[in-house]
């Protein structure tokens, strides 16, 4: 088992390494560089050249990547070319926003999915179940960015209940903070709850057929108690794995939501850095995103293994 985990980890480190190298080359290949950003619109070619030399951008890509790796090995992710801010600081200051967005969106998704899934399983085939199933299918077909616009239109522009955009840190108060996260999280949650609900529903239906449920029924326990106490827990394993997968996929994907709602998260940091060719920030962000993705997938894989040890002996597959 230890060997299996080690091998898996080594492979994941390899993946992260490959991603960072790929990013470096790719970003270096982009036309124009940060010198054009730094110099602004009123620069002369000579000044741009000077900036490029000063930042070491005239060096070979591989040399620069080597430098980056060397300093990374010493725990230094460099500084933003643009604002001179240490990359790690930039990421640490944005990370809470992205994490809060991800967590809240999944919390909302679960708040929708669990009662709906439990009830649909309990009354499988009923009108409510069918309506909810169709609704879910419809919602999963709404592009997230469209949903975000619809929510802004309804709750920010028409009803004026919630701010359209912006971000308030926790220091401004919990409510102020949450208020700014409601619409962005909902934009994600209203799509993401569907697979969760469907998974939970099918797992619950299976669980409800088990003997111990019949036992509980025979004992005369009320339905809600059977559902929540006895059936929910054994049915939630797949739910958790799917949750993990969704978060893993969202890490790089919260970008458009952060853009639409002007949330200062990792996604926006990344896209702004790409637009500015701020290589150091791009490298840092991609490293974080790749590590996050890989770690979550690793955890999910381990969960699978914990469930089904046969996977351990299966060959090179992943």
């Amino acid at each position, binding site marked *: 088992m230890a060997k299996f985990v080690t091998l898996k980890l080594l492979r994941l480190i390899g993946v992260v390494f490959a991603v960072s190298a790929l990013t470096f080359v790719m970003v270096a290949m982009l036309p124009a560089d940060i010198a054009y950003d730094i110099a602004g619109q009123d620069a002369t070619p000579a000044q741009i050249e000077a900036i490029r030399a000063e930042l070491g951008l005239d060096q070979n890509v591989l040399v620069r990547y080597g430098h980056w790796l060397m300093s990374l090995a010493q725990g230094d992710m460099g500084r933003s070319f643009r604002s001179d801010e240490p990359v790690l600081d930039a990421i640490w200051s944005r990370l809470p926003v992205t994490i809060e967005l991800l967590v809240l969106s999944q919390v909302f998704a679960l708040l929708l999915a669990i009662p709906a899934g439990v009830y649909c399983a309990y009354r499988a085939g009923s009108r409510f179940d069918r309506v909810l199933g169709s609704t879910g299918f419809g919602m999963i077909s709404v592009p997230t960015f469209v949903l975000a616009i619809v929510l*802004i239109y309804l709750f920010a522009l028409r009803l004026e209940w919630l701010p359209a955009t912006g971000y308030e840190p926790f220091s401004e108060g919990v409510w102020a903070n949450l208020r700014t996260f409601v619409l962005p999280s909902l934009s994600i949650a209203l799509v993401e709850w569907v697979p969760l609900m469907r998974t939970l529903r099918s797992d619950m239906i299976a669980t409800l057929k088990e003997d111990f449920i019949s036992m509980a029924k025979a004992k005369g326990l009320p339905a809600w108690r059977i559902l929540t106490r006895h059936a929910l827990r054994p049915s939630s394993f797949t739910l958790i794995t799917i949750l993990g997968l969704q978060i893993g996929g969202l890490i790089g994907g919260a970008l458009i939501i952060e853009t639409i709602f002007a949330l200062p998260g990792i996604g926006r940091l990344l896209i702004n850095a790409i637009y500015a060719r701020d290589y150091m920030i791009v490298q840092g962000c991609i490293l974080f995103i790749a590590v996050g993705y890989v770690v979550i997938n690793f955890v999910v894989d381990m969960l699978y293994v914990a469930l089904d040890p046969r996977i351990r002996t299966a060959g090179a597959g992943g």
Partner: protein
Amino acid sequence: MTARQFFSGVLGGAVLGTFLLVCAGANAEEPKRGGSITVGLETDLRGFDPIKARVLGNSAATVINVIQDRLFDVDEEGNLVAMLATGAEQEEGGTSWLITLRTDVTFHDGTPFNADAVVAHWTRILSPSYVGGIFLQPMEGIEKVDEFTVRFHLDHAWGPFAGSLATPIGFAPYIPSPRAVSDDTQNRHPVGTGPYMFKEWRSGDRFVVVANPNYWGDDGPHLDEITFRFLPDQQTRLASLQSGDIDVMWMDRGTTIRSAQKDDSLDEHDTLGNGSLIIFLLNGSKPPLDDLRVRQALSHAWDQTLAMKVFYRNTQTEITHPYGSLLDCGEAGYRAHDIEKAKQLLADYGQPVAFEMIHTTTPRGREVGQLMQQLFKRVGVTLNLKPVDQLQLRQRVFTNNYEMSGWRIGDIPDQGPQLFGLFHSKSGYNITKYRAAEMDALLEQQRLLTDAEARGELLCRIAETINRDAPILYAGGRRHYAFTRQRLKGLPALAYGLIRLGHAWVTDGK
């Protein structure tokens, strides 16, 4: 008229120390002390060290303006107003200037403000590592005369000199604490002599300043705290303003301006500036744009009136020259929209005209490109659109790898240096590749001319030459808009598009 006042003020007034101190304009109300406001900025900041951050954008200018002071300010009429300087005296026919400084000022970090601080700052500004130096070329150097006097040396008598010390939209005029600069902390922790002091900067999110209790001036600071928030999307910024999450924002999109105007809870501030928010560069080194007739035809095909309506919903004004309120040059031979003339000129040219325009991938960029394409199509010119990102656009313009591109002429106190950069055949910044001996002569003349009237005339002749030879097309002038919530008072006019909050106060303060 205002331009004249400006120039005569600089030239005639050997001593400027007695200039009126303009504060909250004609506001009858007495400013209240206390309270705080939130300002919506378009972009995150880069930093405050001129060498490191290099370019001061509009957002950063709004911030630096309350933290660091300049030697002079310019008022709404273009008059110089003393700030950290008490006087300016022209010497040796205008080839050097003696500036006297205030003696009672200290920086936020306790460093005294004196000649050393000014010399240290300007020495860096005039070093080759500062990018903005291109428009300061006639300045040779600065020396300390005594503890509170410095002398600037110039190549030649130079009209825009005083304006260069006063303009609020470049790094050069803002004096930082020499200690912060030498400690290398200025960039991310700016220290100045201004009414507000740096408190916190959370990149991508907000920048916070607090009142400077030891401010040297009489008027301000009135607020306890100002929070600048970075809200890149203009519409969402407006939504935040309307919901009261922010108190003031700058805007340039016609749609947002029109919707803000409809909101009774907001106060509008607008000021006519100069320059042009969008111009189109027609690269004179690339066929078919190297042919004068083609460029002229294009300027007739272009419809500024329509652009005003489509891009700005008539919140901007049409222009015939880049001087805005500084100068009145009349029509200046502007080639108005005239399809027949355009077709005639193209018929003279006799070949099919097709070329490419690069524009940004932003909604504004696409809009501009698509409108241009349509208008050109109507005179039989094929315009291929190539959206590129901002940096690529700059790269292609700077490396002369473009045929037509959007650009802008900045709003600055004196357009002379900028036009020299754009159109002089020997200028390193000549991105239009426009070359004409006549233009070169005019541009060189204006540089040396210090007489306001004569200079004004010359600048108008330059505008006429631009209109005749059509190296650029204008897409409107530059009227600056800002909207505030009604609680916010004490905002001066938006000269050069800058929201100046140094004297701002709120009605719900003490």
